[in-house]
C-alpha cells in the first residue's frame, strides 16, 4: 500500500539508486575491514562472518515464507545485517552464537516492525546488544591477534591464540596499555571484534561510501569529533588531559560511526538532525566509556539515538517554503 504512494508533479527526474544497490555498495565497502579481520584473527573469523551472513539470509527467507510476504533476501539488507553483526563479534565466539544473534536481529530488530524501512533500531546492533546481555562472557573474551608479521611490528607468538582485553577494557581496569602504539591501533594489531580493529581498512570503505555519496559526512564526523573532544576533556587524570586519539582508534567507534550510525532507516532525515544525532552519539559514547559500567558504549549510544530519531526529526523539520 505504502509503496504505491506517488506524490509529486512533473517534471520527474529518474534516479537509479535503488535501496538494494546502496545496500550492496555498503556491503562491498565493508569487505576491506573483513579481509583485515580474517587476516588478523585467522580463519575462525571467516567462518563467523560466513555463518552470520548465511543464517541472516536464511532467517529472512523463512520469515518471508511463513508470513507469506515477498521474498526480500536479495535487497541486501539481511546480508548487510549478518555482515555487520559478525563484525561486532569477537573471532573466538562459539559457532552457535552468530545464528542466535542474526535470528534476533532479523526478526526482533527488523521484521516485527514490518521489515526494512520500518525498523526503529539498527538491526545488527539490536543483535549485538541482545548477545551482550545474554552471553556476556563469550562477547567479552577476545583473542589477541595471533600473528602480525607483515609489517614486522610485533614478534610472532608461540601460541595459536591468547585471550586479551581490548584496549578500552584494560583502560577501564586501570591497566597500563603502553605496549600498543597508535600505529598498532590504526592497523588493527589489538584484541577486539572482527570488523572493528583495522581502522585503515574501515576508513578505506568509508571513503568509497563518501565518494559515491551514499553516506554524508555529517553523522560520522560529528560523532567522532564529539567523542574525541569529550574524552580529551574528561578521560584523563585531570581535565583536558585525556588520550583522545586512543579513544577514537579503539573500540568500535570508527565502524559504528561510518557504517551503523549512518543507517538510512533509523537516523534523522535533515542535515541539522544528523548533526544533533552525531553529537548525541558522541556524548553518550564518551559518558559510557568514561563514567559507565561498560568499557565500550558505541552500540548502546547509537541505539539510544535511534530511539530519539523521531523527536529529532520532528524538531528539525525543514520549513515549508513561503510559510513562517
Amino acid at each position, binding site marked *: 500500500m505504502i509503496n504505491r504512494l506517488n506524490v509529486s508533479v512533473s517534471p520527474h527526474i529518474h534516479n537509479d539508486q535503488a535501496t538494494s544497490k546502496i545496500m550492496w555498495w555498503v556491503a562491498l565497502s565493508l569487505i576491506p575491514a573483513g579481509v583485515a579481520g580474517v587476516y588478523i584473527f585467522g580463519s575462525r573469523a571467516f567462518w563467523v562472518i560466513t555463518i552470520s551472513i548465511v543464517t541472516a539470509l536464511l532467517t529472512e527467507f523463512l520469515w518471508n515464507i511463513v508470513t507469506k510476504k515477498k521474498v526480500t533476501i536479495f535487497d541486501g539488507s539481511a546480508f548487510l545485517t549478518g555482515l555487520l553483526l559478525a563484525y561486532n563479534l569477537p573471532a573466538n565466539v562459539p559457532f552457535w552464537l552468530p545464528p*542466535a544473534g542474526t535470528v534476533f536481529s532479523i526478526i*526482533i530488530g527488523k521484521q*516485527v516492525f514490518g521489515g526494512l524501512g520500518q525498523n526503529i533500531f539498527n538491526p545488527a546492533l539490536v543483535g549485538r546488544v*541482545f548477545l551482550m*546481555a*545474554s*552471553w*556476556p562472557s563469550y562477547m567479552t573474551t577476545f583473542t589477541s591477534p595471533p600473528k602480525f608479521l607483515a609489517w614486522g611490528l610485533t614478534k610472532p607468538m608461540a601460541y595459536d591464540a591468547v585471550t586479551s582485553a581490548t584496549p578500552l577494557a584494560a583502560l577501564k581496569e586501570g591497566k597500563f596499555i603502553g605496549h600498543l602504539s597508535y600505529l598498532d591501533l590504526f592497523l588493527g594489531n589489538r584484541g577486539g571484534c572482527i570488523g572493528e580493529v583495522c581502522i585503515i581498512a574501515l576508513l578505506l570503505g568509508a571513503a568509497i561510501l563518501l565518494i559515491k555519496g551514499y553516506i554524508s559526512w555529517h553523522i560520522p564526523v560529528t560523532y567522532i569529533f564529539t567523542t574525541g573532544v569529550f574524552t580529551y576533556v574528561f578521560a584523563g587524570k585531570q581535565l583536558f588531559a585525556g588520550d583522545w586519539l586512543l579513544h577514537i582508534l579503539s573500540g568500535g567507534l570508527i565502524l559504528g560511526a561510518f557504517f551503523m550510525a549512518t543507517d538510512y532507516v533509523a537516523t534523522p532525515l535533515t542535515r541539522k538532525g544528523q548533526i544533533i544525532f552525531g553529537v548525541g552519539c558522541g556524548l553518550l559514547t564518551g559518558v559510557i566509556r568514561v563514567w559507565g559500567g561498560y568499557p565500550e558504549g558505541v552500540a548502546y549510544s547509537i541505539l539510544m539515538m535511534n530511539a530519539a530519531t523521531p523527536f529529532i526529526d520532528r524538531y528539525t523539520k525543514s520549513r515549508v517554503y513561503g510559510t513562517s
Partner: protein
Amino acid sequence: MKKLIAEFTKGLIKENPTFILALGLCPTLAVSVSVSNGIGMGIAATFVLLGSSVIISFIKNFIPERIRIPCYIVVIATFVTIAELCMKAYSPALDRALGIYVPLIVVNCIVLGRAEAFACKNNVMASLFDGLGMGVGFTLALILISGIREFLGTGRLLGHTVINGFEPVFVFGMPSGALLVIGLLLGFFNFLKGRKA
C-alpha cells in the same frame, strides 16, 4: 448455568486480562522470572479477585456512587491482607520472592477493573464466576510468561534442569526479557483474535 460458565471462560482466552485487556502488566513484568513465582502470584491474585468481586457485588446497593472507589479499595485491601498474611505464614520463601508485589495487588488494575466494570453491575453468582475466570486467566498467562522466561533465562523449569548443556539466555531473566516476551505474546494473541474475527 450456561451463562455463568460463559462468564468463567471469557477470562481464559477471549478477554484474558493480560493478553487481551492488557491489565495488571506491572506485577506480570516483575514477578514472571520463575514459574513458582508466577503460580504464587496468580493464586494470590485469584483469591483477591474472587473475594472482592463477591463482596462488592453483595454490597453494591449500599455503596454511594461518589465514593465507590475508596469502598472498593477497602474491600480489596482486606483480602490482600489476608492473602499476604497467609503467604507469610505458610510460604515464607515465596513471600520473600514476591516481596512488595503482594501488597501491591491492592492497586492491581485487574482487581479494581473487575470491581468497577463487572461486580458493581452484576449479581453475586455472575461476579463470582467472572472473578474466578479472570483470576485463572491471569494465572495461566503468568505461567506461560514465566515458563518461557524461566526456561530461556535459566534453562530450568520449576527449578529442574530441562536440557543439559543449554546455555541460558540471560536477557530473558532481566526486565527487558519480560517486556520482550509479553510484547510478543500480546502480538501473537491479538493476531489470533484478528484472524478469528
